[in-house]
């Protein structure tokens, strides 16, 4: 406030001195002092998801906005931009804004989401799918909070909540001093992105000992999902799965380099894209390999497919199957080995098999293994989550780590979804041990349950896991943002290429006539908040200026009167000389 006042003073003094002192300073002080003056503030906003899946539209349909800002407490919300903070966010308020046909909704998120308290995170996570399920024509934006945005919010709050309750004089003063804000986005209307290709990567480790070896496929999808694509970092789901896959690739490629440990199984690693959009990458890969190619590892002897999904936390492991494995099959062997390893080496982990039939009538498939199941390949998904409907699989609150202050006491349920590195490395070792026991047939050969293979030089490298997870969560990996030239894809390709052979890319483009998925652009915008005055203010100003001009006119017309007045005041002094 003081800088503004001194700037005004400087300008005045440079132009004309005495008159400004008498006339202008009181007026300026009255008009400038009540609120700190705010200029236009530019900030980045991230739009809510907009996509069509199998013809069904989801999310917000609109991108442009040019409306005045209000908060939820205001009475009139129609055609206004409603600003809410995350701490005050609730579904009823959101619905209220939509019911009153608001022009837009902007939700302000704290800069560091890991410091949010647990219940707010939980509540928001549950609301995300509901917000996406209802198709809204109103653009919904998310902005990260900073000081200026917060002050804009508080100013809007005070002016919104004081709207209906003051006298005429207060309203007049209010119009002169209050600041309204006009929110304007700079982009265009959103439109569908044509020819977006989702990239997936595959690599293999060939087994030894003849043709027609059984194949084990390890799959993890690398993309993330959240209510806003640019804010979805997907740490646990599925950054943990990808980092575990890379670590398994490293370990087994090491084992396969030595002739003594080169096993008789082919290992196929697949990092799929579009996983959160009903596993598009996997679906097309399967079609290409099974329908369009003559010979592929997937057509011949597939022992089983293991999908890794959300394994970075938690003390339980669930093996999700669509058909319980029959005895004597490799899937059954894996199930038994997992149970063995858990019971003898990791008693703190609760392991169970979850049987869920594939329901083709559902909008989307539950887990990635169901895609393989539909094509009659034996598959399961490992996850620490019990149900595929868990909110944290598709939430922007899934971040790399949470601060200790937001956790409850030790022993209680942990805070928002995040990756716990020790648990991730424990899970990696667990799965690696179980896989090794299946591949090398250790139980039949009489190896004890607590035989540990991956120790000393072969041990799971926690730093490797940590750096991969850190790198993955450093950028948003929504499927709409990762195209084939993206650095995520090329770095993953490079990493896979270090350990595996025949690393190949696989592209999925939506079908032209009946697209399975359609993405839209304008997901990140720059929004400007302009300080505006209410319309009455201009009228008030016009009246004041008209009055002022009238006074000037009268003064000039009757200048003689003024002059003689001045002379009469100064004359007695000269008469005395």
């Amino acid at each position, binding site marked *: 406030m003081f800088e503004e006042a001194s700037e*005004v003073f*400087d*300008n*005045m*003094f*440079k*132009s*004309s*001195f005495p*008159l*400004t002192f008498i006339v*202008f300073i009181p007026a*300026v002080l009255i*008009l*400038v002092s009540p609120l700190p*003056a705010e*200029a*236009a503030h530019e900030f980045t906003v991230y739009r809510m998801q907009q996509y069509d899946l199998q013809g069904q539209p989801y999310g917000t349909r609109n991108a442009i906005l040019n409306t005045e800002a209000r908060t939820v407490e205001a009475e009139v919300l129609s055609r206004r931009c409603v600003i809410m903070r995350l701490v005050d966010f609730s579904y009823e308020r959101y619905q209220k804004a939509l019911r009153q046909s608001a022009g837009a909704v902007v939700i302000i998120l704290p800069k560091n989401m890991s410091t949010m308290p647990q219940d707010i995170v939980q509540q928001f996570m549950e609301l995300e799918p509901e917000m996406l399920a209802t198709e809204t024509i109103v653009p919904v934006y998310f902005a990260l909070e900073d000081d200026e945005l917060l002050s804009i919010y508080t100013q809007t709050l005070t002016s919104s909540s004081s709207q209906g309750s003051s006298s005429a004089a207060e309203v007049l003063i209010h119009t002169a001093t209050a600041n309204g804000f*006009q929110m*304007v986005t700079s982009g265009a209307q959103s439109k569908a992105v044509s020819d977006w290709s989702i990239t997936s990567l595959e690599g293999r480790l060939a087994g030894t000992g003849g043709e027609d070896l059984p194949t084990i496929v390890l799959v993890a999808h690398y993309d993330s999902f959240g209510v806003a694509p640019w804010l979805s970092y997907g740490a646990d789901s599925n950054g943990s799965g990808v980092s575990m896959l890379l670590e398994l690739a490293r370990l087994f490629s090491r084992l396969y380099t030595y002739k003594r440990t080169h096993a008789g199984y082919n290992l196929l690693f697949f990092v799929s894209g579009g996983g959160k959009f009903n596993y598009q990458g996997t679906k097309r890969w399967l079609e290409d390999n099974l329908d369009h190619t003559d010979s592929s590892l997937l057509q011949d002897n597939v022992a089983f497919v293991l999908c890794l999904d959300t394994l970075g936390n938690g003390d339980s492991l669930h093996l999700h199957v669509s058909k319980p494995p029959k005895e004597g099959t490799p899937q059954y062997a894996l199930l038994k080995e997992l149970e063995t390893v858990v019971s003898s080496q990791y008693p703190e982990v609760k392991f169970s098999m979850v049987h869920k039939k594939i329901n083709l009538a559902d909008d989307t498939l539950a887990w990635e293994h169901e895609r393989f199941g539909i094509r009659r390949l034996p598959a399961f998904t490992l996850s620490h989550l019990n149900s595929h409907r868990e909110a944290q699989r598709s939430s922007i609150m899934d971040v790399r780590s949470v601060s200790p202050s937001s956790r409850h006491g030790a022993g209680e349920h942990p805070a928002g979804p995040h990756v716990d590195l020790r648990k991730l490395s424990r899970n990696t070792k667990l799965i690696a041990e179980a896989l090794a026991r299946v591949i090398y047939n250790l139980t039949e050969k009489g190896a004890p349950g607590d035989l540990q293979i991956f120790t000393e030089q072969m041990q799971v490298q926690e730093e490797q896991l940590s750096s991969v997870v850190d790198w993955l969560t450093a950028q948003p990996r929504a499927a709409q943002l990762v195209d084939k030239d993206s650095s995520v894809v090329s770095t993953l390709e490079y990493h896979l290429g270090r350990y595996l052979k025949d690393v190949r890319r696989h592209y999925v483009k939506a079908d032209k006539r009946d697209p399975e998925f359609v993405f839209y652009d304008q997901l990140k915008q720059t929004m400007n908040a*302009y*300080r*505006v*005055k209410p*319309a009455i203010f*201009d009228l008030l*100003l*016009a009246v004041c*200026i008209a009055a*002022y*001009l009238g006074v*000037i*006119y009268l003064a*000039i*017309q009757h*200048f003689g009167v003024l002059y003689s007045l001045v002379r009469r005041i100064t004359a007695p002094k000269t008469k005395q000389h």
Partner: protein
Amino acid sequence: MTLFHFGNCFALAYFPYFITYKCSGLSEYNAFWRCVQAGATYLFVQLCKMLFLATFFPTWEGGAGVYDFVGEFMKATVDLADLLGLHLVMSRNAGKGEYKIMVAAMGWATAELVMSRCIPLWVGARGIEFDWKYIQMSFDSNISLVHYIAMAAVVWMFTRYDLPKSFRLPVTVLLGLCVYKAFLMECLDCTAKAILTFYCFNTFM
């Protein structure tokens, strides 16, 4: 409503000039073209000043907080050209004293208004963003009208040979103030700041 706001500022800035022109009797003397000539002289004088400043006063590379008194003093002295310009305009106009003063001042002030305030108002006041500075700029132009009238009057008085001796000194002082007022304001500002920081420093030490 932002075009309305531009209209408000425009009215605030221009109408007093218009009223002054109409009501001070200048219109009876068909002084319009003489005012325009005065405006042209203003443009010419400003151009000369700018060239002079650009040529002889290189950018001063010194500390950011220290005020270059001598440099700014020399720059302010160039504003004497304003006075000379006013004198030139007035000497070319035959007529009574008031006529000369009013013509010179009106033309000068109008030219300054058009040159320095038109474009900021057009560009800024029409935008979505509201800022008090446009109202302030328009009000400023009113004050500068009065200021130029006073300045022209003082210059005219200075050049009169029948000015009483007792008035010589105040007139000269006023002329000096006209030229150096910006510089004096900066000096006062700097000294006030220095005294204040010195005082605060002493209080807290």
